C-alpha cells in the first residue's frame, strides 16, 4: 500500500514539557487510521502536527520529520496554508461558523481560498460536499438557515462537509463523535467508512469499540509514546504489547 504520511521520530514540546516521544508511523492511502489512548497521551497533539495546527501555539517545538508524499511538511518550502488545503480537519466540538448559514459554512472555504469560481460552481460543490457528508437530504430546504440552528450531529456533518468542500486528500478527525449522541455517532462512523474510499482518514478516539468498528489500522498511544500499531483485527484480538492488552481489557485508562 502506498503511504501518504511517513512520520520519522516525531517528538515535540510545549515549553519545557515534552508531549510526543519519537513517534514513527506510516499512514496508507485511502485507509482509516485510528489513534487511540487514554486522555493526555498525546493523540490530539499528534494529529494536530499533521496539518501544522500547532504553528500558532507559543512555545511549540518539534523534532523529527513528517513526510507528506515524500516532502517534509515542516520544511521551508511548504506553506502551511496550502498544506491545510490538502489536509483537512474536523474538530472535537462541532464548530460551524456562527452567523453563517448552512450554505455559507460550506462555501466559505471555496470563496476565501482565492479560486475564481462562478456562483454555479460554488453551488454545485456545496451540494456535492453536503451529499458526501450525508447531510444534503436533511438541509437542502434550509440552506439559508443558520448553521448553528442544526442539531449537534448535523453540525458535525456540516463541519465535515465544510472540510470536504475544499477537496483535501487527507481528513484528520479529532474525536469527532465525543460530543455526539449514539445515533449521530453511528451516522458519522458510516460516513467515515464511505469517505475512506476516496480519502485518507486519521481519527483520534478514546473509544475502543469505535476504533475497532471504523479503522483499518489502529495506533495505541500512551504517555506520548506510540506503543503499538497494527491492523485493527490484530490489535484487539492479539496485541503484541502487554500495555495495549491491559488498555483494551480495561485494566487502566
Amino acid at each position, binding site marked *: 500500500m502506498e503511504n501518504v504520511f511517513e512520520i520519522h521520530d516525531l517528538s515535540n514540546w510545549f515549553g519545557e514539557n515534552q508531549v510526543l516521544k519519537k513517534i514513527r508511523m506510516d499512514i496508507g492511502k485511502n485507509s482509516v487510521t485510528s489513534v487511540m489512548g487514554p486522555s493526555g497521551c498525546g493523540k490530539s497533539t499528534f494529529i494536530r502536527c499533521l496539518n501544522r495546527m500547532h504553528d500558532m501555539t507559543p512555545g511549540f517545538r518539534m523534532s523529527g520529520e513528517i513526510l507528506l508524499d515524500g516532502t517534509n511538511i515542516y520544511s521551508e518550502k511548504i506553506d502551511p496554508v496550502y498544506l*491545510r488545503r490538502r489536509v483537512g480537519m474536523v*474538530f472535537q466540538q462541532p464548530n460551524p461558523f*456562527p452567523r453563517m448559514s448552512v450554505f455559507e459554512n460550506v462555501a*466559505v472555504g471555496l470563496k*476565501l481560498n482565492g479560486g475564481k469560481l462562478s456562483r454555479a460552481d460554488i453551488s454545485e460543490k456545496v451540494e456535492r460536499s453536503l451529499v458526501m457528508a450525508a447531510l444534503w437530504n436533511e438541509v437542502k430546504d434550509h440552506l439559508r438557515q443558520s448553521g448553528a440552528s442544526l442539531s449537534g450531529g448535523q453540525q458535525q456533518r456540516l463541519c465535515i462537509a465544510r*472540510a470536504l468542500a475544499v477537496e483535501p486528500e487527507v481528513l484528520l478527525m479529532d474525536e469527532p463523535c465525543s460530543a455526539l449522541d449514539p445515533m449521530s455517532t453511528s451516522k458519522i462512523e458510516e460516513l467515515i467508512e464511505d469517505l475512506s474510499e476516496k480519502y485518507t482518514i486519521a481519527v483520534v478516539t478514546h473509544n475502543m469499540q469505535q476504533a475497532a468498528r471504523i479503522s483499518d489500522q489502529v495506533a495505541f498511544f500512551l504517555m506520548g509514546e506510540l506503543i503499538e500499531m497494527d491492523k485493527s483485527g490484530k490489535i484487539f484480538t492479539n496485541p503484541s504489547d502487554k500495555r495495549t492488552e491491559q488498555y483494551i481489557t480495561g485494566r487502566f485508562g
Partner: protein
Amino acid sequence: MTGAITFRRKAVDRTMKALFCLAAILVILPLFLILFDLLIKGGKELKLTLLIDLPHPVGEPGGGIANGIAGTFVITLLAMLWSVPTAVLCGIYLAEYGKGKFASAVRFAADTMTGVPSIIMGIFGYILLVLPMKRFSAWAGAAALSMIFIPVVVRTTEEMLRTVPTTVREAALALGIARWKATLRITVRTAWPGILTGILLAMARIIGETAPLLFTALGNQFWQTRLDQPMAAVPLQVFTYAISPYEDWHDKAWAGALVLITMVLLINIAARVLTREKR
C-alpha cells in the same frame, strides 16, 4: 434562641437587599431627573422651527438650531470616517496579533487616552490644526473628536474579538484560509454585532462632547458647507445659549439639550437593538 437568630438573619438579609435596590435607584435617578427637567424646560421651545431654522438674534422670537444639528452630524461623521477603520483595525491587531511589548504599550496608551479630559483633546486639536491652518474648522473639530473616539473603539473591538472562541479561528485556518482573510472574513464577522455596538456607543459619546469643539470647530451662527471653516454644533449652541444673560436664549439652550439627549438616546437604543438581534 434559634428563632431569634433566624429573625435576625432574615432582617439583615432584607436590609442588605434594600440597600442594593437603593443603590440601583440612585444610579438611574439622575437620568430620569435630567430627562424630566429637560422635557419641562426644553419642551416649550421644542417646535418644528427649532429643527429647521437658523438661530435668530437676541430678542427676536423664533429661530432654531438647524445649522447646529447639521454641523453635529457633519463633524461626527467626518470624525468617524477615519476613526472607524483606524480603531477597528487597531483593535484587530491587539486581539489577533498583539502579543509583545508594543501591543501592551498600545493598550496602555488607549486606556490612558480614554481617561484624558476632553478639553485637552480640544486644545491639542487647536495646536495641531487650528494654529497651522490659521482658522477654526470642522476638520479640527473632527480631529479632536477622533481622539476621544479611537481609544474607546480600539478597546471595545479588542474585547469583542476576544469573545470569539478559538475553535472558530482554528476551523478557519484548518480550511487552508490565509490568516488575514480568516481574521477579517470570519473572526471579525463573528464579533461584528459587538464591534458595531462599540462604534455606536462611542458615537453617542462624541456627539455630545462640547469641550473639544470649543477651540476647534468654534461654532457658527450661519450655515457652513465648507469643512475648513468654523462650523456650528448642537453642544456648542447649548453652551453659548446657556451662558448668555438672555431669558429666551436660556429656553433655547434647554431645547437644544433635549434635542441632543434625544439623539444620544436613539443611538443607544440602536446599539441595543443590534446586539439583541440573533446572537
